[in-house]
């Protein structure tokens, strides 16, 4: 009865790359072929893929193409990651510059206020001492 259910079953069992290559090479017994074909029949993806792969003149070229495509894929992903990281650094660079400017303005403000206060104190001190001198002179002359 399981066979009847198999007809409608779409539970996809993944066909491995190795199995597919062996199937393409015709390097399998009829039973082994059937197992892969049953998996293929449940998946349009695998079915179409095998049909396409059978059209390659040179089967070793298939494996080479896959390796090259994978290499390019990882290169592409790595360069995207690098670009993303650079962009992140660029964005965080602006934040750092803004923080430094704000900090600079604060320090400058603090210094200006401090100088201003110092001047005020100096002025007050010089005025008091001038007053004291004139009071002293007045008392001496009297």
């Amino acid at each position: 009865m399981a066979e009847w259910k198999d007809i409608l079953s779409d539970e996809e069992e993944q066909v491995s790359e190795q199995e597919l290559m062996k199937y393409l090479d015709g390097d399998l017994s009829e039973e082994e072929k059937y197992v892969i074909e049953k998996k293929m029949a449940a998946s349009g993806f695998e079915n179409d893929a095998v049909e396409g792969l059978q059209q390659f003149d040179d089967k070793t070229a298939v494996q080479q193409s896959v390796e090259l495509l994978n290499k390019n894929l990882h290169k592409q992903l790595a360069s995207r990651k690098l670009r993303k990281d650079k962009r992140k650094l660029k964005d965080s660079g602006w934040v750092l510059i803004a923080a430094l400017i704000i900090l600079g303005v604060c320090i400058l403000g603090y210094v200006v206020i401090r100088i201003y206060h110092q001047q005020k104190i100096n002025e007050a001190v010089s005025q008091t001492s001038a007053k004291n001198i004139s009071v002293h002179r007045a008392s001496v002359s009297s």
Partner: protein
Amino acid sequence: MDKDAFKHIEDKDLLAKFYTDGNNQWLGILLQRYTLLLLGVCMKYLKNEEDARDSVQQVFLKVITELQKYKVEYFKSWLYMVAKNYCLMKLRDRHGKIPVELTDNLVAIADEPERRVEILAKDNTLNAIAESLNELNDEQKLCVTLFYLQKKSYQQITDITGYSLLQVKSFIQNGKRNLKIIVEKKIKQR
């Protein structure tokens, strides 16, 4: 990158990892599982090795961009749909229209596996399959029976029936699809 190192991680888990940390390397591991299949699908529709290789790269690019925009639930079905649609566009650019023999196969809709197995859970399904098999045309009925019930390989069915390998595959695929439609209809009526 070593494929076997991540063999134990399922597609959906790799996708989840990508959605969590946004690291493209997870996509690389996931996509390279399907490079061979994508190359085959592109070759099937475009019939040119160079075009097929270029198209796989374009599909990779599309997938990397699209996955950053929205969440995908069933990656394999979705990827198959993206690849088929890309080939369809390419054929349209090449010919101005899609060759008639491909239009039927190129209706790219992502299936949801959960919904498809639902029908099997019903008790009266087996009887319905047996009844429905007789409603298929002779070629489809013969190929479906030989393949699913007698466990014959495509080549053996070709030898028995005299049909070509492509015909056998097509009769099995279409027979299975038609059978499903008939069974679903029968179950709804009961």
